[in-house]
């Protein structure tokens, strides 16, 4: 089982979601994060003083799937989240040893 973690641009979430639904992905967890990378933040004026917001708002999407699905999922994300602009984000893949569904206690692949 793998966990796929994608850092994407906020307004791309809808498309990624729909793309994954297309693969029959039943669930995911999303959170708001601040990104720091090649894409630089913008500068603002506040009562005469300039200041730069160097973090860019991003969305982190976490999806746990069976090994077999990993490539499909990554493919979809790379396709859907892409604008071709700097700041599109990253996808990270990492191992998961086990998963449980709290409601039923089911374990492993049945849990996701």
């Amino acid at each position, binding site marked *: 089982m793998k966990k796929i973690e994608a850092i994407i641009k906020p307004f791309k979430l809808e498309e990624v979601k729909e793309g994954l639904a297309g693969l029959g992905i039943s669930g995911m967890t999303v959170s708001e994060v601040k990104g720091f990378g090649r894409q630089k933040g913008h500068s603002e004026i506040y009562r*005469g003083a300039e*200041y730069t917001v160097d973090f860019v708002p991003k969305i982190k999407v976490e999806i746990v799937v069976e090994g077999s699905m990993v490539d499909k999922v990554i493919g979809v994300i790379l396709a859907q989240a892409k604008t071709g602009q700097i700041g599109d984000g990253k996808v990270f893949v990492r191992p998961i040893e086990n998963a449980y569904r709290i409601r039923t206690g089911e374990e492993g692949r049945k849990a996701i």
Partner: protein
Amino acid sequence: MKKILRKIPLLAVILLLFPLLAWGADETASIAGNAEAIKAVQSNADYVWTLVAAALVFFMQAGFAMVETGFTRAKNAVNILMKNLMDFAMGSIFYWAIGFGLMFGVTTTGWFGTSGFFLSDFSPGGDPWVLAFWMFQAVFAATAATIVSGAMAERTKFISYLIYSAVVSSLIYPIFGGWAWGGLFHGGGWLEKLGFIDFAGSTVVHSVGGWVALAGAIVLGPRIGKYTKDGKVRAIPGHNLPLAALGVFILWLGWFGFNPGSTTAANKDIAMIFVNTNLAAAAGCILAMVTSWLRFKKFDVGMSLNGALAGLVAITSPCASVTPLSSVIIGAIAGVIVVFAVLFFDMIKIDDPVGAISVHGVCGAWGTLSAGIFNIGGTSVKIIGVQLLGIGTAFAWAFTTAFVMFKLI
């Protein structure tokens, strides 16, 4: 009770008109009786207007609270609100106990009054004018006090702030106020005797507040992180501009009590004062927007809001003695001044989170000067001179006393 009270005015009128009513029966209404009645009605109108205006000025407290909360960081919102609330509460009590007497009490020297503490001029059944007048003056005192909270925001201990607001509303403000306005009641200050023009208090209320704020900001030093080690200015953006904007609208509204109400009489003069107040505010707002745009190539809401306040502060002194056209000019200039004043104080590392020093101190001074320059009745070196004297005195008095006070507490 209410019932009885409700009747009193009737009673009054009845008594006044007694002849007439009688006359209703047997033709003996008197001219004198009518004349008395007319005066009574006019004076009722004066009471209503003065007190409605006082209510509007009171509401400015909410305006200041919102502006300061909006222009500072979320974590300090509660602290700032607490201060805005308490300085009005403390101000009311101390101005009642001490301040009013020093400002408007009988004075031999012209330096401070010595009667009328605890509203002792009023005795049940006596003429209640002193109460209406006190109410209007009390909200002015509280305004002067609350101006300061903005400049000292985000870094003042609460206790010291309580002490401070007691001192301002019982000593610093009333004593200077007495010099310029004492004659409105039992007092008679040296400054007004020289013909100092400050109709609604650009200097008496706003500059004094602003200079006290300056002293406070200097003594406290800047907020942590406001200036980088290498001395660059770091903006600490306000967290809630909608609240700040609401605050400015509330203040603008309050000014319709602050300036026209200063007639403390229901008469036709208030019309021009209303118009002047509004035009100056509008001009200040627009010019501040334009200036900040030329300067930063961005529209700066904070500056535009300050510009409106700058215009209002500036017109406070001349509002009754200049034409609408002059008001537009006065406000516009204030709108430009405020932008550069804010930049200036930032440059010299005096940290004023809401721009209170620039808005109230600097533009208050400008407004007082403009009252001399644009005076409808014509101007003269002497008039200008007296205005400058007043401006200078205000700075000397407010800054010095406040500086000492802040050092002590």
